[in-house]
């Protein structure tokens, strides 16, 4: 599938010091100009909206605002080195926000990944009917914007509005979705609703790529459907599962909308610094401590980049092994 002939030309062109190597025809020059025309706009914008903010965040994270001597002159910016980083790391709010995310992931990942894997296996089984309908129905929540999904579920958690609470009441139970004990489950339900179908589609596609001979061999050996699913299908799509788990973690450390809305509803244990992004929001936009917010952002970014890098590395290794 590689572009024919082009790779052969490349080393010569790359090594040549002059812009026009002996073999370069006007055609090649035209191509180089076209390539520049195609990629320059993207990289200009890339520099403006990605590289510049990161560089600026690094710069900002090195300064702190101090009120000047007599307290009259307002504040001045002083170089603080790694002061903001130390400040963020020692802030209990920032540290505990990572604890919250860890706890959240401990519940969310098994539920959501387990759920989507189970659904993909069910859908992949020969017994499932109306596969297209189920695929669409299960994926549909992903078409709902995260903010609207959060609003809908928060209303479904609200006494008086919620049919779910009516059902629980009809069964003689009672439930408070916002109480300290239940709010984590309520949050996990909210995000699992949005992402289970999405990941199921990924797993289902991976299952479809499992070679049929392998499955037929299992049947000949007398393995039942459940055993085939657990001992053959699941290990064969393990790479897709691990990648999805890592992607989910990258998403989880950035979670903002859902806890923000739960906090707004007055869930007592979801405070305004509950997640790292909420912490950054508060430091930047409520306390206007930009240095601190920048340092916290960069540390969160580093974690996200490390996780994503792991994903691509593992992905490449698996691709090479296939």
């Amino acid at each position, binding site marked *: 599938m590689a572009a024919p002939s*082009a790779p052969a030309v490349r080393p010569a062109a790359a090594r040549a010091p002059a812009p026009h190597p002996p073999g370069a025809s006007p055609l090649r020059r035209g191509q180089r100009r076209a390539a520049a025309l195609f*990629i320059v706009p993207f990289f200009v*914008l890339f520099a403006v909206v990605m590289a510049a903010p990161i560089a600026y965040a690094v710069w900002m994270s090195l300064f702190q605002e101090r009120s000047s001597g007599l307290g009259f002159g307002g504040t001045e910016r002083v170089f603080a080195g790694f002061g903001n980083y130390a400040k963020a790391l020692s802030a209990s709010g920032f540290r505990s926000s990572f604890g919250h995310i860890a706890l959240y992931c401990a519940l969310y990942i098994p539920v959501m990944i387990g759920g989507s894997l189970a659904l993909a296996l069910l859908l992949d089984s*020969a017994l499932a009917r109306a596969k297209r309908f189920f695929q669409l129905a299960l994926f549909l929540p992903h*078409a709902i914007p995260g903010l609207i999904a959060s609003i809908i579920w928060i209303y479904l958690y609200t006494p008086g509005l919620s049919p779910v609470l009516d059902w629980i009441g009809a069964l003689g139970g009672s439930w408070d979705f916002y109480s300290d004990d239940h709010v984590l489950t309520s949050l996990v339900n909210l995000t699992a*609703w949005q992402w289970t179908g999405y990941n199921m589609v990924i797993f289902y596609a991976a299952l479809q*790529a499992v070679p049929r001979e392998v499955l037929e061999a299992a049947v000949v050996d007398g393995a039942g459907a459940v055993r085939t699913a657990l001992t053959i299908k699941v290990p064969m799509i393990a790479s897709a599962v691990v990648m999805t788990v890592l992607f989910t973690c990258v998403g989880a450390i950035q979670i903002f909308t859902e806890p923000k809305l739960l906090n707004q509803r007055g869930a007592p244990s979801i405070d305004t610094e509950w997640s790292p992004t909420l912490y950054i929001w508060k430091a930047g936009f409520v306390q206007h401590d930009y240095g601190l917010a920048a340092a916290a952002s960069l540390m969160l970014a580093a974690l996200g980049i490390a996780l994503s890098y792991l994903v691509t590395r593992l992905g490449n290794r698996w691709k090479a092994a296939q």
Partner: protein
Amino acid sequence: MTTLTQHTESPAARPTATRRPTGKPRRTAAGTLLSRGVVNGLLLVAAFYTLMPISWLLIAATKNHRDLFATSGFAFGDFHLLANLERVLTYHDGIYLRWFGNSILYSVIGSAASTLLCVATGYAFDKYEFRAKEKLFGLVLGGVLVPTTVIQLPMYLLATKAGVVNTYWALLLPALVNPFGVYLARVFSEGYVPGEVLEAARVDGAGELRTFARIGLPMLAPGFMTIFLFSFTASWNNFFGALVMLNDEQLYPVNLGLFMWNSVTQQQPEFYSLVITGSLVAVVPLVAAFVCLQRFWRSGLTAGAVK
């Protein structure tokens, strides 16, 4: 490249007829019936879970404020959908329509421009040779790794200095850059646009731009749709960015407008039906688009997943 072969081949690997016998011969008829019941029953339960909140929204949008609280969630009250719609569309001089228009501007125009940039860039990376090509591509991949929410604050501060905060550009400019889209576009270009066709066009004397516009772009149409859908959902969903960048109500996308209405519901419960009906109006076009464009998101998902 593996990704592409995988997802283009998957329809072929599909035939259920050949798969169906799996596990069947050893079962009794009753046993099969039972397992079939269990499998489909579980899927039905899951479908109930995913569809229940959406159906509730649909029903709730037909109720007036009194029935919203007085009737049970899945029972219909008096039919007030049209009155609710009218209220949403006319409230505060029709600000909702303005928000909707803004969302379309941010998401449709923004994503179309961004997708064109991605496709042109990905195509150039695939089909042309230039200096530092792989290094530049590494930069693109690095961009994929950066979590977007994390650069929002410095972007806001820079935007303040540049004077673009609280303008349309504050959301449009960041939406134009989609490194993952460039990656996908390169993969799609490798798979969909054979180099021979381009060579033939060159021999016929067509310029590079013309070759791209007349031959490359049409061949990349399915990939264009996939990338467009990705970036469309991302910008339609972008709540954090809007919250950071905008404080003029007139510039809000639907998301942020609904968030603002929702934040007063606890003090003024009559806003509930505005938020509910407004949410429904915002969701319907998205659901319709997803149902109609199924094959595009499916190919995008699988390509993205195996990256």
